């Protein structure tokens, strides 16, 4: 099908874009990389009267890594995030999540702001931001505000974003994740390579001393995608491994906590019981991988094994 008729706007600045949103409110829909909205519109599930295409807002396409924080502009493509060596060094969970999104053509056009704006509970960046306690930066004609990822995802595809607001970027503080003793992982279970995941797990593990015989976990972060109606942070799983040296028993408690916390919806290829089991299994695998990367001092990037000789 073809989409219903709409009026097309191409602002060239954030101010111009937020003016349009203020004018048309819920008759308008923002279009970033257009990897999701176009499909929804072609099927006439959404029939907005006005499209505000923000692809011209080049100012929002950036990856900025400083010693304190990582900032990523809303219009940064999955491909840019996937290939950013600065991100691979600082917060490797971002490129690890980006490289598993759909296929190359989607990654070339799709953007981080679009993914967060859509807020699909199976989405990768929403889960990464939830795991890393990230912030979203939002603009409207009333000015700018910052909202924590933990406050932003409210219900299924339902967010704290108002009709007249535009996401300008995201940021994550680096302080909890020193690269010399932190490891990260983003693992997905997918029925097919280029589709949405059945479950994903985002894990970060910081150890006290990577050179010790059995380094203990200082802090752990664990969030699951597609295990509930919003990205699911599992603090009980984090608590199960924190303060401990890694062992099968602590991993098993973390996995059990994740299975219990999960409230998955049933899907065509995965019933709820299976997804609960996957939530546990991917929690176990992602925490284990993150821990191995945290203690592997030869690989300070903490990124995938294939990048180290």
């Amino acid at each position, binding site marked *: 099908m073809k989409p219903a008729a709409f009026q097309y706007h191409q602002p060239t600045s954030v101010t111009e874009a937020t003016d349009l949103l203020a004018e048309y409110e*819920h008759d308008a829909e923002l279009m970033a990389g257009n990897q999701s*909205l176009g499909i*929804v519109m072609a099927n*006439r599930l959404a029939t907005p009267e006005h499209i505000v295409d923000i692809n011209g807002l080049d100012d929002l396409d950036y990856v900025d890594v400083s010693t304190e924080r990582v900032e990523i502009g809303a219009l940064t493509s999955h491909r840019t995030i996937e290939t950013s060596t600065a991100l691979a060094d600082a917060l490797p969970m971002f490129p690890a999540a980006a490289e598993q999104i759909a296929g190359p053509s989607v990654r070339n056009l799709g953007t981080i702001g679009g993914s967060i704006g*859509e807020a*699909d509970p199976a989405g990768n960046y929403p889960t990464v931001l939830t795991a890393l306690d990230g912030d979203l930066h939002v603009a409207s004609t009333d000015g700018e505000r910052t909202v924590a990822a933990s406050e932003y995802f409210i*219900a*299924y*595809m339902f967010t704290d974003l108002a009709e007249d607001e535009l996401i300008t970027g995201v940021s994550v503080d680096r302080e909890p994740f020193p690269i010399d003793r932190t490891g990260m992982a983003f693992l997905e279970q997918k029925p097919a390579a280029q589709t949405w995941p059945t479950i994903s797990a985002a894990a970060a593990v910081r150890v006290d001393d990577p050179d010790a015989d059995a380094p203990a976990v200082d802090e752990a972060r664990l969030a699951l995608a597609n295990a509930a*109606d919003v990205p699911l942070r599992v603090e009980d799983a984090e608590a199960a491994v924190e303060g401990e040296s890694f062992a099968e028993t602590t991993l098993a408690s973390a996995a059990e906590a994740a299975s219990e916390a999960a409230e998955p919806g049933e899907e065509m290829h995965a019933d709820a019981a299976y997804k609960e089991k996957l939530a546990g299994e991917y929690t176990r695998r992602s925490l284990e991988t993150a821990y191995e990367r945290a203690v592997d001092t030869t690989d300070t990037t903490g990124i995938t094994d294939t990048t180290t000789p």
Partner: protein
Amino acid sequence: MMEFDGEFTSDHPRDELWNYFTDPAILADCAPGCDEITMESPGELSATITVGVGSVKPTFDVDMTVTRADAPEILEMEVGGDASRNSFEAVTEMRLIEDDDGTTATWEARTNVAGLIASMGQRALGSVAARIVNNFFEDLEAKADEGVPAESQLEAKPEAEATLEN
């Protein structure tokens, strides 16, 4: 048929809350996505409400009939809404129970949903509906906290009964 339910606790006595729940101007202010509410009669309201799940957000013309109004305890309404390629009908019931700390409002809704919104499924709709209703209660509680004046104007439409067609 889809069923939704939930509860909300308020610091205010139910006599006071009742006025807020039955004042159309307060309802129009608090109902998320509600552009306007018109009181056709003490037992009938019409409204325009936009409900969104992601980018799917039809604007419904909604008719509400008060089928039971036992002040300050039970408010029951029959609600029907039509939008482009979407429609719904619902029977909603709210009970206010007072205790030492304030009031507990329990609500349930039995609905038939048709069209595109129906394809989102019970889980997606339930997740969003629960959130919208909570927002509504929170906004209403805030009005009561601020002491915004409210006047009870709704009563049951004579001989109206709540039914849900299948």
